[in-house]
């Protein structure tokens, strides 16, 4: 089996250059590539375009890279809960493209699946439709949307093996399987790295063909944005 293992996050991202286009998995702070983001902060690459559903919070996730001004453009569906983001956006320092969440997911899926464009009803009649081709199918109006690809995709999985096969946990899966396929170089960090053969092939969410580098992650904080509990 092809061995995809690299020693560390720093080694995994060492060839990410200024102005690269990145995809980063995660929904809110759930399932974000914590180790990869820390390594990007250490490397200090700038001018990044980040495709990620959210932009983290002020002091965690992609929010950390906004603070250090490493991000030139965000492509996201929802960017609330981040005061620094809103400040940079309203002042024009940060370029932002907001995309309906399902369209974002499908554009990434299309990128990985070799589908250059598709039609979706989401955003028809809104400012999202500006400049896009509109077609009618069965009496309903649809927008043409294009695939999205990235130079690098950074995803975080629960378990992975040395061949790059990945299993996600809970709702931490979200955008990561599609991003893994849409990244030219996909870097997976995992909570538990095991030898090839130890994961049940029936349970693999992302086959190793989509993953170029994998490493054992460490020190996961797994911060919770909205800790909501009930009494017993």
């Amino acid at each position, binding site marked *: 089996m092809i061995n995809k293992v690299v020693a560390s996050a720093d080694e995994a991202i060492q060839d990410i250059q200024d102005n690269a286009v990145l995809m980063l998995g995660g929904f809110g702070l*759930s399932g974000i590539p914590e180790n990869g983001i820390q390594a990007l902060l250490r490397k200090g690459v700038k001018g990044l375009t980040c495709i990620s559903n959210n932009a983290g919070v002020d002091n965690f996730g992609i929010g950390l890279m906004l603070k250090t001004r490493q991000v030139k453009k965000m492509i996201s569906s929802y960017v609330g809960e981040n005061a620094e983001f809103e400040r940079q956006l309203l002042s024009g320092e940060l370029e932002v493209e907001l995309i309906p969440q399902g369209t974002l*997911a499908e554009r990434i899926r299309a990128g990985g699946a070799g589908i250059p464009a598709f039609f979706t009803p989401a955003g028809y009649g809104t400012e999202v439709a500006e400049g896009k081709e509109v077609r009618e199918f069965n009496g309903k109006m649809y927008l043409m949307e294009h695939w999205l690809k990235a130079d690098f995709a950074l995803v975080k999985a629960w378990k992975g093996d040395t061949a790059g096969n990945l299993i996600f946990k*809970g709702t931490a899966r979200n955008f990561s399987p599609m991003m893994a396929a849409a990244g030219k170089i996909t870097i997976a960090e995992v909570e538990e790295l095991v030898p090839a053969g130890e994961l049940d092939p029936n349970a693999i969410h992302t086959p190793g063909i989509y993953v170029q580098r994998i490493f054992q992650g460490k020190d996961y904080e797994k911060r919770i944005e909205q800790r909501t509990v009930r009494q017993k």
Partner: protein
Amino acid sequence: MALDKNQIAQRIAKEVQNGQYINLGIGIPTLVANYIPDELEVVLQSENGLLGIGPFPTEDQIDADLINAGKQTVTMVKGSALFSSAESFAMIRGEHVHLTILGAMEVSENGDIANWKIPGKMVKGMGGAMDLVASAENIIVAMQHCSKDGASKLLPQCELPITGIRCVKKIVTDLAVLEIDPNGGFRLLERAPGVSVEEIKAATAGKLIIEGEVPEMTF
């Protein structure tokens, strides 16, 4: 008396039918789950990749890898399923989700909805709202009838950037239950207890359709 948020949620829960798959938006819609009668078998969808949202966790059940679309920690009911965001929106776009309940800043009399952006002031993004309103077969909006300064949010046309066109079916506000007439207009179905038709008229900027006696809501 105008309804509070929980009462709006409680009234919306009466619209839920047995066997439905339902997507609840952030805010008042999330509260609807508290009022769905136990005898109804329904499944709540969370667009970040879960079918079968359960109650909030107790302190010892908290799992950072299990959240709803509002990023709140949740649990899963028996028979839940987990999936990717692409799969999640395939369910939504493919019209497999029967009912969508979401909040709004404005609704127009032809069923347009605005809830994602206030130019120059607030830019949070549309999240999954545009996908949901473009595809759901039944959309119920939970909202306040007027803004804090008293301006009607039920308008002839939306003034804010819209999220979707001609999609809202029913609206439950703190004052009334209304449905969008296919030919345009807010058809008044029910009044909040103690709220008069005159008060609702005064609070509705869009075309209000009133036919016969308008009953008070029951819960």
